Protein backbone atom coordinates (compact mmCIF):
# COMPACT_ATOMS: atom_id res chain seq x y z
CA UNK A 1 0.00 0.00 0.00
CA UNK A 2 2.73 2.40 1.03
CA UNK A 3 5.25 1.48 -1.65
CA UNK A 4 3.21 2.20 -4.82
CA UNK A 5 2.23 5.61 -3.41
CA UNK A 6 5.85 6.48 -2.64
CA UNK A 7 6.84 5.39 -6.16
CA UNK A 8 4.15 7.74 -7.46
CA UNK A 9 5.63 10.50 -5.32
CA UNK A 10 9.10 9.91 -6.78
CA UNK A 11 7.67 10.07 -10.32
CA UNK A 12 6.36 13.55 -9.63
CA UNK A 13 9.43 14.82 -7.78
CA UNK A 14 11.59 13.39 -10.58
CA UNK A 15 9.53 15.23 -13.18
CA UNK A 16 9.82 18.48 -11.24
CA UNK A 17 13.55 18.10 -10.68
CA UNK A 18 14.72 16.69 -14.01
CA UNK A 19 12.13 17.52 -16.67
CA UNK A 20 10.75 20.96 -15.80
CA UNK A 21 13.94 23.04 -15.33
CA UNK A 22 15.47 24.38 -18.55
CA UNK A 23 18.89 23.11 -17.45
CA UNK A 24 18.61 20.61 -14.58
CA UNK A 25 22.36 20.48 -14.01
CA UNK A 26 22.47 24.25 -13.56
CA UNK A 27 19.46 24.08 -11.22
CA UNK A 28 21.03 21.34 -9.12
CA UNK A 29 24.44 22.98 -8.97
CA UNK A 30 23.07 26.40 -8.03
CA UNK A 31 23.04 29.60 -10.05
CA UNK A 32 26.46 30.73 -8.89
CA UNK A 33 28.30 27.45 -9.43
CA UNK A 34 31.27 27.53 -11.84
CA UNK A 35 30.88 25.63 -15.15
CA UNK A 36 33.16 22.77 -13.97
CA UNK A 37 30.81 22.02 -11.10
CA UNK A 38 27.81 22.07 -13.41
CA UNK A 39 29.62 19.60 -15.70
CA UNK A 40 30.46 17.44 -12.70
CA UNK A 41 26.80 17.34 -11.69
CA UNK A 42 25.81 16.50 -15.25
CA UNK A 43 28.22 13.56 -15.17
CA UNK A 44 27.29 12.42 -11.68
CA UNK A 45 23.52 12.36 -12.26
CA UNK A 46 23.84 11.08 -15.85
CA UNK A 47 21.89 14.06 -17.16
CA UNK A 48 22.91 13.36 -20.78
CA UNK A 49 21.32 9.92 -20.67
CA UNK A 50 17.70 9.11 -21.56
CA UNK A 51 15.11 10.00 -18.92
CA UNK A 52 14.43 6.45 -17.73
CA UNK A 53 18.15 6.01 -17.03
CA UNK A 54 18.15 9.28 -15.09
CA UNK A 55 15.12 8.06 -13.16
CA UNK A 56 16.95 4.87 -12.25
CA UNK A 57 19.90 6.87 -10.88
CA UNK A 58 17.49 9.22 -9.10
CA UNK A 59 15.73 6.36 -7.32
CA UNK A 60 18.94 4.58 -6.39
CA UNK A 61 20.26 7.90 -5.06
CA UNK A 62 17.19 8.37 -2.89
CA UNK A 63 17.45 4.84 -1.53
CA UNK A 64 21.17 5.16 -0.78
CA UNK A 65 20.60 8.46 1.02
CA UNK A 66 22.13 10.65 -1.69
CA UNK A 67 19.51 13.39 -1.86
CA UNK A 68 21.80 15.92 -3.44
CA UNK A 69 24.12 18.59 -2.09
CA UNK A 70 22.67 21.60 -0.33
CA UNK A 71 24.95 24.45 -1.43
CA UNK A 72 23.36 26.96 0.95
CA UNK A 73 24.47 24.83 3.90
CA UNK A 74 27.55 23.25 2.28
CA UNK A 75 26.52 19.73 3.25
CA UNK A 76 24.30 16.92 1.94
CA UNK A 77 20.55 17.60 1.87
CA UNK A 78 19.73 14.53 3.92
CA UNK A 79 21.98 15.71 6.77
CA UNK A 80 20.17 19.03 6.88
CA UNK A 81 16.77 17.36 6.83
CA UNK A 82 17.76 15.04 9.69
CA UNK A 83 18.75 18.07 11.74
CA UNK A 84 15.62 20.05 10.98
CA UNK A 85 13.03 17.30 11.02
CA UNK A 86 12.53 17.07 14.84
CA UNK A 87 11.70 20.78 15.14
CA UNK A 88 9.00 20.53 12.47
CA UNK A 89 7.70 17.29 13.94
CA UNK A 90 7.42 18.80 17.40
CA UNK A 91 5.61 21.87 16.07
CA UNK A 92 3.08 19.92 13.99
CA UNK A 93 2.39 17.49 16.84
CA UNK A 94 1.59 20.36 19.19
CA UNK A 95 -0.55 22.07 16.59
CA UNK A 96 -2.46 18.80 16.14
CA UNK A 97 -2.75 18.44 19.91
CA UNK A 98 -4.48 21.82 20.00
CA UNK A 99 -6.53 21.47 16.82
CA UNK A 100 -8.09 18.04 17.30
CA UNK A 101 -9.69 18.31 20.78
CA UNK A 102 -10.68 21.97 20.44
CA UNK A 103 -12.00 21.46 16.91
CA UNK A 104 -14.06 18.42 17.89
CA UNK A 105 -15.41 20.17 20.98
CA UNK A 106 -16.47 23.26 19.00
CA UNK A 107 -18.03 21.07 16.33
CA UNK A 108 -20.08 19.18 18.91
CA UNK A 109 -21.26 22.38 20.58
CA UNK A 110 -22.12 23.80 17.18
CA UNK A 111 -24.18 20.76 16.21
CA UNK A 112 -25.98 20.44 19.54
CA UNK A 113 -26.87 24.14 19.60
CA UNK A 114 -27.71 24.22 15.90
CA UNK A 115 -28.78 27.65 14.59
CA UNK A 116 -28.35 29.22 17.99
CA UNK A 117 -25.74 31.81 18.91
CA UNK A 118 -22.92 29.36 19.87
CA UNK A 119 -23.41 27.68 16.47
CA UNK A 120 -23.18 30.96 14.56
CA UNK A 121 -20.10 32.00 16.51
CA UNK A 122 -18.29 28.74 15.96
CA UNK A 123 -19.19 28.72 12.25
CA UNK A 124 -17.80 32.20 11.78
CA UNK A 125 -14.72 31.22 13.78
CA UNK A 126 -14.26 28.15 11.59
CA UNK A 127 -14.79 29.97 8.28
CA UNK A 128 -12.28 32.60 9.39
CA UNK A 129 -9.81 29.82 10.10
CA UNK A 130 -9.94 28.41 6.59
CA UNK A 131 -9.72 31.92 5.11
CA UNK A 132 -6.85 33.21 7.24
CA UNK A 133 -3.42 33.64 5.62
CA UNK A 134 -1.42 31.75 8.21
CA UNK A 135 1.63 34.02 7.86
CA UNK A 136 -0.53 37.06 8.55
CA UNK A 137 -2.07 35.47 11.65
CA UNK A 138 1.43 34.72 12.93
CA UNK A 139 2.50 38.32 12.38
CA UNK A 140 -0.57 39.66 14.19
CA UNK A 141 0.06 37.36 17.15
CA UNK A 142 3.68 38.55 17.27
CA UNK A 143 2.55 42.16 17.13
CA UNK A 144 0.08 41.71 19.99
CA UNK A 145 1.76 39.19 22.27
CA UNK A 146 5.40 40.08 21.70
CA UNK A 147 5.67 43.70 20.59
CA UNK A 148 2.85 45.21 22.65
CA UNK A 149 2.24 42.86 25.58
CA UNK A 150 5.62 41.16 25.77
CA UNK A 151 4.08 37.92 27.07
CA UNK A 152 5.62 35.45 24.62
CA UNK A 153 8.88 35.28 22.67
CA UNK A 154 8.65 35.71 18.89
CA UNK A 155 11.43 33.51 17.57
CA UNK A 156 13.37 30.30 18.06
CA UNK A 157 12.76 27.13 20.06
CA UNK A 158 14.03 28.26 23.46
CA UNK A 159 16.84 26.84 25.57
CA UNK A 160 18.36 23.61 24.28
CA UNK A 161 17.84 20.81 26.84
CA UNK A 162 20.98 19.63 28.62
CA UNK A 163 20.70 16.21 26.97
CA UNK A 164 19.19 15.59 23.58
CA UNK A 165 17.71 12.17 22.95
CA UNK A 166 15.01 12.69 20.35
CA UNK A 167 15.53 16.27 19.15
CA UNK A 168 12.04 17.11 20.46
CA UNK A 169 12.95 19.83 22.95
CA UNK A 170 9.99 19.47 25.30
CA UNK A 171 10.28 15.71 25.54
CA UNK A 172 14.06 15.93 25.96
CA UNK A 173 13.69 18.52 28.72
CA UNK A 174 11.38 16.21 30.62
CA UNK A 175 13.64 13.21 30.09
CA UNK A 176 16.71 15.11 31.27
CA UNK A 177 14.75 16.72 34.15
CA UNK A 178 15.87 20.13 32.94
CA UNK A 179 12.97 22.29 34.11
CA UNK A 180 14.51 25.58 33.12
CA UNK A 181 14.66 24.56 29.48
CA UNK A 182 11.25 22.90 29.75
CA UNK A 183 9.64 26.19 30.77
CA UNK A 184 11.49 28.09 28.07
CA UNK A 185 10.63 25.56 25.37
CA UNK A 186 6.93 25.51 26.21
CA UNK A 187 6.99 29.31 26.27
CA UNK A 188 8.48 29.39 22.79
CA UNK A 189 6.21 26.85 21.15
CA UNK A 190 2.88 28.37 22.21
CA UNK A 191 2.57 31.14 19.59
CA UNK A 192 3.76 29.12 16.58
CA UNK A 193 1.67 26.10 17.58
CA UNK A 194 -1.46 28.21 17.99
CA UNK A 195 -0.80 29.91 14.63
CA UNK A 196 -0.30 26.61 12.85
CA UNK A 197 -3.28 24.94 14.49
CA UNK A 198 -5.96 27.46 13.55
CA UNK A 199 -6.66 26.31 9.99
CA UNK A 200 -6.74 22.64 10.98
CA UNK A 201 -8.91 23.45 13.97
CA UNK A 202 -11.38 25.18 11.67
CA UNK A 203 -11.52 22.20 9.33
CA UNK A 204 -12.08 19.83 12.25
CA UNK A 205 -14.88 22.01 13.62
CA UNK A 206 -16.73 22.11 10.32
CA UNK A 207 -16.44 18.39 9.72
CA UNK A 208 -17.42 17.42 13.26
CA UNK A 209 -20.43 19.72 13.07
CA UNK A 210 -21.79 18.30 9.85
CA UNK A 211 -21.19 14.66 10.75
CA UNK A 212 -22.67 15.19 14.24
CA UNK A 213 -25.78 16.69 12.63
CA UNK A 214 -26.15 13.58 10.47
CA UNK A 215 -25.67 11.19 13.36
CA UNK A 216 -27.95 13.03 15.78
CA UNK A 217 -30.89 12.44 13.42
CA UNK A 218 -30.49 8.66 13.48
CA UNK A 219 -32.86 6.31 15.26
CA UNK A 220 -30.43 4.86 17.76
CA UNK A 221 -29.87 8.33 19.19
CA UNK A 222 -33.61 8.73 19.64
CA UNK A 223 -33.66 5.34 21.33
CA UNK A 224 -30.86 6.35 23.66
CA UNK A 225 -32.66 9.54 24.57
CA UNK A 226 -35.97 7.69 25.01
CA UNK A 227 -34.29 5.32 27.43
CA UNK A 228 -33.68 8.42 29.54
CA UNK A 229 -29.88 8.52 29.21
CA UNK A 230 -28.40 11.87 30.19
CA UNK A 231 -27.62 14.22 27.29
CA UNK A 232 -23.85 14.12 27.90
CA UNK A 233 -23.70 10.35 27.57
CA UNK A 234 -25.87 10.32 24.45
CA UNK A 235 -23.79 13.01 22.79
CA UNK A 236 -20.28 11.99 23.74
CA UNK A 237 -20.57 8.24 24.03
CA UNK A 238 -23.16 7.37 21.41
CA UNK A 239 -23.17 10.10 18.81
CA UNK A 240 -19.60 11.34 18.81
CA UNK A 241 -17.98 7.98 18.34
CA UNK A 242 -19.75 7.48 15.05
CA UNK A 243 -19.42 11.09 14.02
CA UNK A 244 -15.66 10.89 14.49
CA UNK A 245 -15.10 8.60 11.52
CA UNK A 246 -15.52 11.23 8.78
CA UNK A 247 -13.77 13.74 11.03
CA UNK A 248 -10.77 11.45 11.16
CA UNK A 249 -10.53 11.32 7.36
CA UNK A 250 -10.47 15.07 7.32
CA UNK A 251 -7.81 15.13 10.03
CA UNK A 252 -5.60 13.02 7.77
CA UNK A 253 -6.17 15.34 4.84
CA UNK A 254 -5.77 18.43 7.02
CA UNK A 255 -2.29 17.20 7.85
CA UNK A 256 -1.33 18.42 4.38
CA UNK A 257 -2.39 21.90 5.35
CA UNK A 258 -0.37 21.54 8.52
CA UNK A 259 2.81 20.64 6.63
CA UNK A 260 2.31 23.45 4.13
CA UNK A 261 1.46 25.81 6.96
CA UNK A 262 4.61 24.73 8.80
CA UNK A 263 6.72 26.28 6.03
CA UNK A 264 5.01 29.64 6.52
CA UNK A 265 4.80 29.45 10.32
CA UNK A 266 8.44 28.46 10.72
CA UNK A 267 9.46 31.34 8.48
CA UNK A 268 7.53 33.83 10.62
CA UNK A 269 8.75 32.51 13.97
CA UNK A 270 12.32 31.67 12.89
CA UNK A 271 11.58 28.11 13.95
CA UNK A 272 14.60 26.03 12.90
CA UNK A 273 12.69 23.29 11.07
CA UNK A 274 12.37 21.96 7.53
CA UNK A 275 9.99 24.77 6.58
CA UNK A 276 12.42 27.53 7.40
CA UNK A 277 15.10 25.51 5.64
CA UNK A 278 12.88 25.45 2.55
CA UNK A 279 12.39 29.21 2.82
CA UNK A 280 16.13 29.82 2.98
CA UNK A 281 16.61 27.38 0.12
CA UNK A 282 14.20 29.43 -2.00
CA UNK A 283 15.99 32.70 -1.29
CA UNK A 284 19.40 31.16 -2.08
CA UNK A 285 18.09 29.12 -5.06
CA UNK A 286 19.19 25.91 -3.34
CA UNK A 287 17.15 23.62 -5.55
CA UNK A 288 18.23 20.20 -4.16
CA UNK A 289 17.15 21.37 -0.70
CA UNK A 290 13.69 22.36 -1.97
CA UNK A 291 13.27 18.98 -3.64
CA UNK A 292 14.43 17.19 -0.50
CA UNK A 293 11.87 18.98 1.65
CA UNK A 294 9.16 18.33 -0.94
CA UNK A 295 9.89 14.63 -1.09
CA UNK A 296 10.14 14.18 2.67
CA UNK A 297 6.93 16.12 3.33
CA UNK A 298 5.04 14.02 0.78
CA UNK A 299 6.30 10.84 2.47
CA UNK A 300 5.25 12.15 5.89
CA UNK A 301 1.83 13.01 4.52
CA UNK A 302 1.43 9.53 3.03
CA UNK A 303 2.42 7.96 6.36
CA UNK A 304 -0.04 10.20 8.23
CA UNK A 305 -2.85 8.96 6.02
CA UNK A 306 -1.76 5.39 6.59
CA UNK A 307 -2.06 5.99 10.35
CA UNK A 308 -5.56 7.37 9.78
CA UNK A 309 -6.51 4.18 7.91
CA UNK A 310 -5.30 2.10 10.83
CA UNK A 311 -7.24 4.23 13.30
CA UNK A 312 -10.41 3.66 11.29
CA UNK A 313 -10.34 0.02 12.18
CA UNK A 314 -10.04 0.95 15.83
CA UNK A 315 -12.93 3.42 15.75
CA UNK A 316 -15.25 1.48 13.48
CA UNK A 317 -15.44 -2.23 14.22
CA UNK A 318 -17.18 -2.77 10.86
CA UNK A 319 -13.96 -1.90 9.03
CA UNK A 320 -11.35 -4.61 9.09
CA UNK A 321 -7.94 -4.01 7.60
CA UNK A 322 -6.62 -6.30 4.92
CA UNK A 323 -10.01 -7.46 3.71
Amino acid at each position, binding site marked *: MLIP*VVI*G*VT*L*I*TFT*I*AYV*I*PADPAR*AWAGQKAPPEVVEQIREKYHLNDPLYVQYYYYISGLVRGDWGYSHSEHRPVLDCLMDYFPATFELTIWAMAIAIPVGIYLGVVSAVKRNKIPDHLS*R*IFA*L*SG*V*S*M*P*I*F*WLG*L*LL*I*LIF*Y*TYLGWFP*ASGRGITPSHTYTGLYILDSILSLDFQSLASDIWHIILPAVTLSYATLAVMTRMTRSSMLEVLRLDYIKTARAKGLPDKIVIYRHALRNALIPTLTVAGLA*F*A*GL*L*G*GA*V*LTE*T*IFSWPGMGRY*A*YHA*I*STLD*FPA*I*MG*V*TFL*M*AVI*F*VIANLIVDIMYAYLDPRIKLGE
Partner: protein
Amino acid sequence: MEETASQNFGSKYESQIKEFKYTLHLIRKSPLTLAGLILLIFIFLVAIFAPYLAIEHPIYIGGQQTWLSDFNQTFQPPSWKHPFGTDDMGHDIYSMVIYGTREALYVGFIVVLVAMLIGVLLGAYSGYIGGWFDEVLMRICDMFFAFPGLILAMAITAALGPGLLHVMYALMIVWWPAYTRIVRGQVLSVKQNQYIEAARAVGVSRFKIIWKHVIPNSLPPILVQATMDLGNVILTAAGLAFLGLGAAAYTADWGIMVSQGRSWMIAGKWWWSTFPGLAIFVTVLAFNLFGDGLRDILDPRLRR
Protein backbone atom coordinates in the same frame (compact mmCIF):
# COMPACT_ATOMS: atom_id res chain seq x y z
CA MET B 1 -41.15 40.23 -34.38
CA GLU B 2 -38.88 40.97 -31.45
CA GLU B 3 -41.75 40.50 -29.05
CA THR B 4 -42.36 36.95 -30.15
CA ALA B 5 -38.66 36.22 -29.84
CA SER B 6 -38.64 37.36 -26.22
CA GLN B 7 -41.85 35.46 -25.56
CA ASN B 8 -40.26 32.36 -27.00
CA PHE B 9 -37.27 32.88 -24.75
CA GLY B 10 -39.56 33.29 -21.75
CA SER B 11 -41.49 30.11 -22.39
CA LYS B 12 -38.51 28.05 -23.52
CA TYR B 13 -36.48 28.79 -20.41
CA GLU B 14 -39.42 29.17 -18.04
CA SER B 15 -38.30 26.43 -15.64
CA GLN B 16 -34.69 27.65 -15.58
CA ILE B 17 -35.82 31.18 -14.78
CA LYS B 18 -38.03 29.87 -12.00
CA GLU B 19 -35.17 27.85 -10.51
CA PHE B 20 -32.86 30.86 -10.70
CA LYS B 21 -35.41 33.06 -8.92
CA TYR B 22 -35.82 30.40 -6.26
CA THR B 23 -32.02 30.29 -5.80
CA LEU B 24 -31.95 34.06 -5.31
CA HIS B 25 -34.72 33.72 -2.76
CA LEU B 26 -32.75 31.09 -0.84
CA ILE B 27 -29.61 33.28 -0.88
CA ARG B 28 -31.61 36.16 0.58
CA LYS B 29 -32.81 33.95 3.41
CA SER B 30 -29.30 32.86 4.49
CA PRO B 31 -27.50 35.75 6.23
CA LEU B 32 -23.97 34.33 5.94
CA THR B 33 -24.37 33.60 2.22
CA LEU B 34 -25.78 37.04 1.65
CA ALA B 35 -22.89 38.58 3.56
CA GLY B 36 -20.47 36.67 1.34
CA LEU B 37 -22.26 37.81 -1.81
CA ILE B 38 -22.26 41.46 -0.73
CA LEU B 39 -18.55 41.29 0.14
CA LEU B 40 -17.82 39.72 -3.26
CA ILE B 41 -19.72 42.43 -5.11
CA PHE B 42 -17.81 45.04 -3.10
CA ILE B 43 -14.45 43.40 -3.94
CA PHE B 44 -15.30 43.23 -7.64
CA LEU B 45 -16.31 46.89 -7.65
CA VAL B 46 -13.01 47.80 -6.00
CA ALA B 47 -11.14 45.86 -8.67
CA ILE B 48 -13.08 47.48 -11.51
CA PHE B 49 -12.85 51.04 -10.19
CA ALA B 50 -9.31 50.75 -8.79
CA PRO B 51 -7.97 53.68 -10.87
CA TYR B 52 -10.67 55.94 -9.41
CA LEU B 53 -10.33 54.75 -5.82
CA ALA B 54 -6.55 54.78 -5.54
CA ILE B 55 -4.54 57.87 -4.61
CA GLU B 56 -1.31 56.90 -6.34
CA HIS B 57 -1.02 54.93 -9.55
CA PRO B 58 1.59 52.52 -10.89
CA ILE B 59 3.51 53.28 -14.06
CA TYR B 60 4.67 50.55 -16.39
CA ILE B 61 8.28 50.56 -17.51
CA GLY B 62 8.87 47.85 -20.08
CA GLY B 63 5.82 45.97 -18.84
CA GLN B 64 7.19 46.06 -15.30
CA GLN B 65 4.90 47.59 -12.70
CA THR B 66 6.65 50.44 -10.85
CA TRP B 67 5.48 52.74 -8.08
CA LEU B 68 7.10 56.13 -7.72
CA SER B 69 9.00 56.56 -4.46
CA ASP B 70 8.70 59.58 -2.20
CA PHE B 71 11.50 59.60 0.34
CA ASN B 72 9.94 62.43 2.34
CA GLN B 73 6.97 60.18 3.08
CA THR B 74 8.58 56.97 4.35
CA PHE B 75 6.90 55.00 7.15
CA GLN B 76 4.01 57.38 7.62
CA PRO B 77 1.41 55.83 9.95
CA PRO B 78 -2.18 55.73 8.68
CA SER B 79 -3.62 59.23 8.24
CA TRP B 80 -6.15 61.02 6.03
CA LYS B 81 -3.48 61.51 3.41
CA HIS B 82 -2.37 57.88 3.50
CA PRO B 83 -5.27 55.81 4.92
CA PHE B 84 -3.13 52.65 5.29
CA GLY B 85 0.20 54.44 5.85
CA THR B 86 3.31 54.25 3.67
CA ASP B 87 6.20 51.78 3.28
CA ASP B 88 9.97 52.30 3.44
CA MET B 89 10.01 53.91 -0.02
CA GLY B 90 7.09 56.23 0.69
CA HIS B 91 4.61 54.25 -1.44
CA ASP B 92 0.97 54.67 -0.46
CA ILE B 93 -0.09 51.27 0.90
CA TYR B 94 -3.80 51.97 0.43
CA SER B 95 -3.35 52.44 -3.33
CA MET B 96 -1.25 49.29 -3.62
CA VAL B 97 -3.85 47.25 -1.72
CA ILE B 98 -6.57 48.59 -4.04
CA TYR B 99 -4.63 47.66 -7.18
CA GLY B 100 -3.74 44.33 -5.57
CA THR B 101 -7.42 43.36 -5.74
CA ARG B 102 -7.13 43.16 -9.52
CA GLU B 103 -4.14 40.88 -9.38
CA ALA B 104 -5.62 38.57 -6.75
CA LEU B 105 -8.87 38.11 -8.66
CA TYR B 106 -6.99 37.69 -11.94
CA VAL B 107 -4.81 34.91 -10.50
CA GLY B 108 -7.79 33.23 -8.82
CA PHE B 109 -10.02 33.22 -11.87
CA ILE B 110 -7.44 32.19 -14.46
CA VAL B 111 -6.11 29.33 -12.32
CA VAL B 112 -9.54 28.01 -11.36
CA LEU B 113 -10.91 28.31 -14.91
CA VAL B 114 -7.99 26.46 -16.46
CA ALA B 115 -8.00 23.77 -13.75
CA MET B 116 -11.75 23.39 -14.15
CA LEU B 117 -11.51 23.16 -17.93
CA ILE B 118 -8.86 20.43 -17.74
CA GLY B 119 -10.86 18.68 -15.02
CA VAL B 120 -14.14 18.78 -16.91
CA LEU B 121 -12.64 17.51 -20.16
CA LEU B 122 -10.50 14.74 -18.66
CA GLY B 123 -12.96 13.80 -15.91
CA ALA B 124 -16.00 13.63 -18.17
CA TYR B 125 -14.20 11.60 -20.82
CA SER B 126 -12.58 9.30 -18.30
CA GLY B 127 -15.75 8.72 -16.30
CA TYR B 128 -17.82 8.09 -19.40
CA ILE B 129 -15.59 5.62 -21.21
CA GLY B 130 -13.96 4.03 -18.14
CA GLY B 131 -11.48 1.23 -18.84
CA TRP B 132 -7.69 1.52 -18.73
CA PHE B 133 -7.71 5.25 -19.50
CA ASP B 134 -9.83 5.90 -16.42
CA GLU B 135 -7.66 3.64 -14.29
CA VAL B 136 -4.41 5.32 -15.34
CA LEU B 137 -5.80 8.82 -14.99
CA MET B 138 -7.07 8.12 -11.47
CA ARG B 139 -3.68 6.75 -10.42
CA ILE B 140 -2.03 9.91 -11.76
CA CYS B 141 -4.46 12.00 -9.73
CA ASP B 142 -3.61 9.94 -6.64
CA MET B 143 0.06 10.79 -7.12
CA PHE B 144 -0.79 14.49 -6.95
CA PHE B 145 -2.96 14.00 -3.88
CA ALA B 146 0.04 12.53 -2.04
CA PHE B 147 1.53 16.04 -1.82
CA PRO B 148 0.53 18.91 0.42
CA GLY B 149 -0.70 21.50 -2.12
CA LEU B 150 1.46 24.42 -1.04
CA ILE B 151 4.59 22.24 -0.97
CA LEU B 152 3.99 20.89 -4.47
CA ALA B 153 3.28 24.36 -5.84
CA MET B 154 6.45 25.59 -4.11
CA ALA B 155 8.61 22.92 -5.75
CA ILE B 156 7.13 23.46 -9.21
CA THR B 157 7.54 27.23 -9.01
CA ALA B 158 11.11 26.79 -7.80
CA ALA B 159 11.81 24.55 -10.81
CA LEU B 160 10.24 27.01 -13.24
CA GLY B 161 11.85 30.02 -11.58
CA PRO B 162 10.09 32.66 -9.45
CA GLY B 163 7.46 34.92 -11.01
CA LEU B 164 3.73 35.45 -11.06
CA LEU B 165 3.15 33.55 -14.30
CA HIS B 166 5.04 30.53 -13.00
CA VAL B 167 3.08 30.64 -9.75
CA MET B 168 -0.08 30.43 -11.84
CA TYR B 169 1.25 27.49 -13.85
CA ALA B 170 2.16 25.72 -10.62
CA LEU B 171 -1.27 26.30 -9.10
CA MET B 172 -2.98 24.96 -12.23
CA ILE B 173 -0.83 21.82 -12.04
CA VAL B 174 -1.74 21.40 -8.37
CA TRP B 175 -5.46 22.04 -8.82
CA TRP B 176 -6.54 20.09 -11.92
CA PRO B 177 -6.61 16.61 -10.31
CA ALA B 178 -9.25 17.66 -7.77
CA TYR B 179 -11.61 18.77 -10.55
CA THR B 180 -10.91 15.70 -12.62
CA ARG B 181 -11.93 13.52 -9.72
CA ILE B 182 -15.08 15.47 -8.84
CA VAL B 183 -16.24 15.59 -12.46
CA ARG B 184 -15.52 11.91 -12.93
CA GLY B 185 -17.53 11.01 -9.83
CA GLN B 186 -20.42 13.16 -11.02
CA VAL B 187 -20.32 11.62 -14.47
CA LEU B 188 -20.36 8.12 -13.03
CA SER B 189 -23.57 8.90 -11.15
CA VAL B 190 -25.21 10.89 -13.98
CA LYS B 191 -24.35 8.12 -16.43
CA GLN B 192 -26.69 5.74 -14.58
CA ASN B 193 -29.75 7.85 -15.46
CA GLN B 194 -32.27 6.56 -17.93
CA TYR B 195 -32.20 9.63 -20.13
CA ILE B 196 -28.56 8.93 -20.95
CA GLU B 197 -29.45 5.41 -21.91
CA ALA B 198 -32.34 6.74 -23.99
CA ALA B 199 -30.02 9.17 -25.77
CA ARG B 200 -27.64 6.34 -26.54
CA ALA B 201 -30.49 4.14 -27.75
CA VAL B 202 -31.63 6.72 -30.31
CA GLY B 203 -28.10 6.92 -31.62
CA VAL B 204 -26.74 10.20 -30.24
CA SER B 205 -22.95 10.31 -30.57
CA ARG B 206 -20.75 9.77 -27.54
CA PHE B 207 -19.27 13.26 -27.78
CA LYS B 208 -22.71 14.84 -27.91
CA ILE B 209 -23.97 12.83 -24.95
CA ILE B 210 -21.00 13.91 -22.83
CA TRP B 211 -21.18 17.53 -23.94
CA LYS B 212 -24.94 18.08 -23.99
CA HIS B 213 -26.21 15.79 -21.25
CA VAL B 214 -23.50 14.58 -18.90
CA ILE B 215 -21.50 17.79 -18.29
CA PRO B 216 -24.45 20.18 -17.74
CA ASN B 217 -26.00 17.79 -15.24
CA SER B 218 -22.80 17.39 -13.24
CA LEU B 219 -22.12 21.11 -13.01
CA PRO B 220 -23.60 22.29 -9.63
CA PRO B 221 -21.09 20.63 -7.29
CA ILE B 222 -18.26 21.73 -9.58
CA LEU B 223 -19.39 25.34 -9.35
CA VAL B 224 -19.52 25.17 -5.56
CA GLN B 225 -16.02 23.73 -5.52
CA ALA B 226 -14.84 26.45 -7.90
CA THR B 227 -16.21 29.21 -5.68
CA MET B 228 -14.40 27.90 -2.62
CA ASP B 229 -11.27 27.24 -4.69
CA LEU B 230 -11.11 30.84 -5.87
CA GLY B 231 -10.45 31.68 -2.23
CA ASN B 232 -8.02 28.81 -1.75
CA VAL B 233 -6.03 29.68 -4.86
CA ILE B 234 -5.72 33.30 -3.77
CA LEU B 235 -4.60 32.13 -0.33
CA THR B 236 -2.00 29.71 -1.72
CA ALA B 237 -0.73 32.25 -4.24
CA ALA B 238 -0.29 34.72 -1.39
CA GLY B 239 1.65 32.07 0.55
CA LEU B 240 3.97 31.49 -2.41
CA ALA B 241 4.46 35.23 -2.84
CA PHE B 242 5.24 35.46 0.86
CA LEU B 243 7.95 32.82 0.41
CA GLY B 244 9.46 34.96 -2.34
CA LEU B 245 8.28 32.89 -5.31
CA GLY B 246 5.66 35.23 -6.76
CA ALA B 247 5.55 38.82 -7.90
CA ALA B 248 8.54 41.16 -7.59
CA ALA B 249 9.08 43.37 -4.52
CA TYR B 250 7.34 46.75 -4.47
CA THR B 251 4.51 45.68 -6.74
CA ALA B 252 0.81 45.67 -5.86
CA ASP B 253 0.74 42.05 -4.71
CA TRP B 254 -0.75 41.37 -1.28
CA GLY B 255 1.51 38.42 -0.47
CA ILE B 256 4.76 40.21 -1.25
CA MET B 257 3.58 43.28 0.66
CA VAL B 258 2.95 41.26 3.84
CA SER B 259 6.35 39.64 3.35
CA GLN B 260 8.19 42.96 2.91
CA GLY B 261 6.52 44.55 5.91
CA ARG B 262 7.18 41.52 8.10
CA SER B 263 10.44 42.54 9.74
CA TRP B 264 9.02 46.00 10.51
CA MET B 265 6.00 44.48 12.23
CA ILE B 266 8.08 43.45 15.24
CA ALA B 267 9.40 47.02 15.44
CA GLY B 268 5.82 48.27 15.82
CA LYS B 269 5.37 49.60 12.24
CA TRP B 270 2.34 47.40 11.90
CA TRP B 271 0.50 48.93 8.94
CA TRP B 272 2.69 47.72 6.08
CA SER B 273 1.85 44.02 6.64
CA THR B 274 -1.51 44.38 8.35
CA PHE B 275 -3.60 45.96 5.58
CA PRO B 276 -2.58 43.73 2.65
CA GLY B 277 -3.02 40.71 4.95
CA LEU B 278 -6.48 41.93 5.90
CA ALA B 279 -7.31 42.25 2.19
CA ILE B 280 -6.31 38.61 1.60
CA PHE B 281 -8.35 37.49 4.59
CA VAL B 282 -11.51 39.39 3.63
CA THR B 283 -11.37 38.28 -0.01
CA VAL B 284 -10.85 34.60 0.82
CA LEU B 285 -13.52 34.78 3.52
CA ALA B 286 -16.02 36.25 1.05
CA PHE B 287 -15.48 33.37 -1.39
CA ASN B 288 -15.75 30.83 1.42
CA LEU B 289 -18.91 32.35 2.91
CA PHE B 290 -20.59 32.43 -0.48
CA GLY B 291 -19.37 28.99 -1.54
CA ASP B 292 -20.38 27.42 1.77
CA GLY B 293 -23.88 28.81 1.49
CA LEU B 294 -24.13 27.94 -2.20
CA ARG B 295 -23.38 24.32 -1.41
CA ASP B 296 -26.40 24.07 0.88
CA ILE B 297 -28.58 25.99 -1.58
CA LEU B 298 -27.68 23.96 -4.68
CA ASP B 299 -27.86 20.63 -2.85
CA PRO B 300 -31.02 18.99 -4.23
CA ARG B 301 -31.54 17.07 -0.97
CA LEU B 302 -31.70 20.26 1.09
CA ARG B 303 -33.29 22.45 -1.57
CA ARG B 304 -36.98 21.83 -0.98
